[in-house]
């Protein structure tokens, strides 16, 4: 957004709070199969942290944290991780997203846990990248960045 006059209170508070929001978002993504939360909520929280920095410190500082050109590739990578996990199960003889057929661990419970973790990471990455891309496209100020 427009570079506002440097307000020390919002700058200080947002720069203190934003890393903790990022950390909590990653915690929610990783613990999505034990507790409430998951890929969508965690990804939204990561996007909220990045958007908070862009909102307070301006888009120029925000570009250093998350460049606008990364939005579509990271979103596509997240979708690719999701469908790659599902199609890997198909490739190794199961049905789509059947984690029991993934060749990533020995015991079945560990396979399902890691499979859900991959899917959650994919969903979180896609949601974060697309929400930041929506914000950047809504502003539409920096076509070169």
């Amino acid at each position: 957004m427009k570079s506002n006059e440097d307000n020390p209170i919002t700058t200080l508070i947002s720069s203190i709070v934003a890393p903790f929001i990022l950390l909590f978002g990653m915690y929610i993504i990783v613990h999505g199969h034990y507790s409430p939360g998951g890929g969508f909520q965690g990804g939204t929280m990561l996007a909220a942290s990045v958007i908070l920095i862009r909102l307070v410190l301006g888009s120029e500082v925000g570009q250093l944290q998350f460049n606008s050109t990364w939005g579509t590739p990271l979103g596509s990578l997240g979708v690719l991780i999701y469908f790659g996990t599902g199609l890997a199960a198909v490739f190794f003889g199961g049905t789509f997203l059947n984690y029991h057929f993934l060749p990533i661990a020995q015991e079945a419970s560990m396979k399902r846990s890691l499979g859900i973790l991959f899917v959650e990471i994919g969903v979180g990455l896609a949601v974060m990248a697309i929400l930041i891309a929506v914000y950047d496209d809504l502003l539409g100020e920096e076509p070169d960045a």
Partner: protein
Amino acid sequence: MHWEIEITLFIVLILVALISLAVRNLLTAVVTLTVFSFAAALLYVVMGAIDVGFTEAVVGGGITGVLMVVLIFKTSRRSSD
């Protein structure tokens, strides 16, 4: 079970919705809609749907308000009242 909390949250929900409909300033309407989302999230948590309440709090209180404020700054009011 928690009917007192539920009734309080429902009253807050309806009041905030009516305020956000009646107010003329769009920024105030966005803020009251965020309060609406937060009250709805608390209501979901009271009813036992923690996952839905969490999603409502994150999306409705975090992202939607920011996107609406950006849209307000990108548009302009036609009438000058």
